[in-house]
């Protein structure tokens, strides 16, 4: 019998940044599939084109900054940014919209701040907000659920050769925002009355929920941010809905509409721009959820995941400062950088 003697550490970890990022990309696949089923090939085209743009702009800027191109491209972080932004863009997006958004996200929001790990804001959401503010018309046109255009039509939309008007319709959030307070009108819009929540979007959000649960089971993300996010969104929605169900949407509708699940599991959980301590993550995510509900109910935009995430990205260092855990042997947590 021969004993193998090897020195410690005995547990070897095969994970690295690239492996984690690849898992995130795999976890978006159910959502991508349902988006394609409901809204046609536009999202797939968006994602593929966004990945190309992201890799090219990342490579160009790494070269300009004198960094190793191969090493940084292999961490897949640019691909994740591109996939998330591609999923968030409307399936009717023409090529230039994605080009502007993704290149801005990679170059300005990520590389100008110093690359992966240095960006204070979620790059995908910076790109999304840039597009939403600059091109409000192109960014708010979605296809009616179940009325998916053919692959050929999607390619024409991508090339900018087909007017969107004939295909587009309001999203459930849009519709509710327009008719909030009018009971008869709310009842007459079938888009608001799917199996669980808004038509089409309920399945999209459940698919992203599925992908998110996979991420938690693989320990890529912890439960704190998604749970806090959904609780922050559902709690005020529940209270307001109990008070006035005509004026305010129910919590399930909020959680299964727009970018709620994508935001909760994939966007707010970005480890670079989120808060870091456990309590900090809960506070951070709760506030994102509350803010989304406030903007959806009272603000000028139908959905608010991007704005809320960016605002709380800005507050993440502040939240971390006040939620620093106590170190063993100390009575009080050490705050700030001093001793």
């Amino acid at each position, binding site marked *: 019998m021969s004993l193998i003697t090897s020195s410690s550490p005995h547990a070897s970890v095969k994970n690295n940044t690239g492996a984690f990022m690849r898992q995130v990309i795999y976890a978006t696949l159910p959502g991508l599939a349902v988006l394609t089923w409901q809204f046609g090939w536009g999202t797939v085209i968006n994602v593929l084109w966004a990945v190309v743009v992201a890799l090219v702009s990342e490579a160009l800027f790494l070269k300009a900054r004198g960094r190793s191109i191969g090493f940084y491209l292999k961490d897949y972080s640019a691909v994740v940014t591109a996939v998330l932004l591609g999923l968030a863009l409307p399936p009717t997006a023409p090529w230039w919209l994605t080009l*502007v958004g993704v290149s801005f996200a990679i170059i300005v929001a990520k590389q100008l701040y110093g690359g992966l790990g240095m960006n204070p804001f979620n790059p995908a959401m910076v790109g999304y907000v*840039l597009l939403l*503010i*600059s*091109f409000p018309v192109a960014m708010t046109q979605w296809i009616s659920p179940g009325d998916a255009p053919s692959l050929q039509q999607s390619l024409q939309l991508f090339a900018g050769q087909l007017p969107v008007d004939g295909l587009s319709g309001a999203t459930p959030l849009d519709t509710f925002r327009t008719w909030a307070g009018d009971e008869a009108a709310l009842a007459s819009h079938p888009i608001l009355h799917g199996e669980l929540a808004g038509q089409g979007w309920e399945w999209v959000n459940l698919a992203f929920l599925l992908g998110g649960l996979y991420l938690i089971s693989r320990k890529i993300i912890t439960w704190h941010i998604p749970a806090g996010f959904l609780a922050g969104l559902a709690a005020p929605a529940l209270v307001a809905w109990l008070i006035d169900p005509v004026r305010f949407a129910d919590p399930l509708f909020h959680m299964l509409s727009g970018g709620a699940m994508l935001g909760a599991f994939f966007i707010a959980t970005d480890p670079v721009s989120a808060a870091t301590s456990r309590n900090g993550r809960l506070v951070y995510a709760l506030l994102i959820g509350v803010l989304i509900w406030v903007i959806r109910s009272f603000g000028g935009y139908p959905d608010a995941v991007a704005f809320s995430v960016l605002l709380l990205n800005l507050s993440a260092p502040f939240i971390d400062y006040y939620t620093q855990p106590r170190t063993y042997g100390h009575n009080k947590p050490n705050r700030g950088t001093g001793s």
Partner: protein
Amino acid sequence: MSDVNYKKISMDGLWNNNPATVQILGLCPLLAVTGSVVNALGLGLATLVVLVGSNVCVSLIRHYVTDAVRLPAFVMIIAAMTTVIEMLMQAYTFELYEILGIFIPLIVTNCTVLGRADAFASKNGILPSAVDGFMMGLGFLVILLILGGMRELVGQGTLFTNMQLLFGPMAAHWQLNVIDNYGGFLLAILPPGAFLGLGLIIAGKNVIDKRLKAIQKAKASDEPKVSRRVRTTGKVS
């Protein structure tokens, strides 16, 4: 007065100590009114005139104002100059005056103006002070124009729109449609566009400075080398 170096004053104002890109002063008007070339030019010219006027006045009274009251006195002078400009613009370029609005009276609070009065004009003669005011104002104006041009071009795809507001009816057709059928890029017109644009301009200036320094260094090291090493071993030639 023979030791005044006008070349240095000019270079400071235009490049080395540019109020917008180096001192980062006067950001409020710089960011707020540079949505188009004509707005930038209007406010830049107004600031330039105020700077020259206030520098000359401050220089004139520099021996009679005590240190304790100098800042209030300077602010009074600057406010008077600004009021004059405001009234002139109201009289001759009324539409532009309406567009620029609050930012004309706000020239009083432009740190560049008070900064130059205190740092330069209160210590120097009339002519150098006037030149300093002119060059600082020109440096500010140039940055305003570049930023205005960038934002107008990216935001609307045009250049020199509405120049008739400043130059009369003959300037109405100066507008250049650089990009035809341009959908517009709203962000460039909104405040974030100003911050991004100014950041890029400052970055560009720093890159040029770095290159110039590298060239100078290379020049210095190109000079014929005389070996200063003292040889202690081997054959001394």
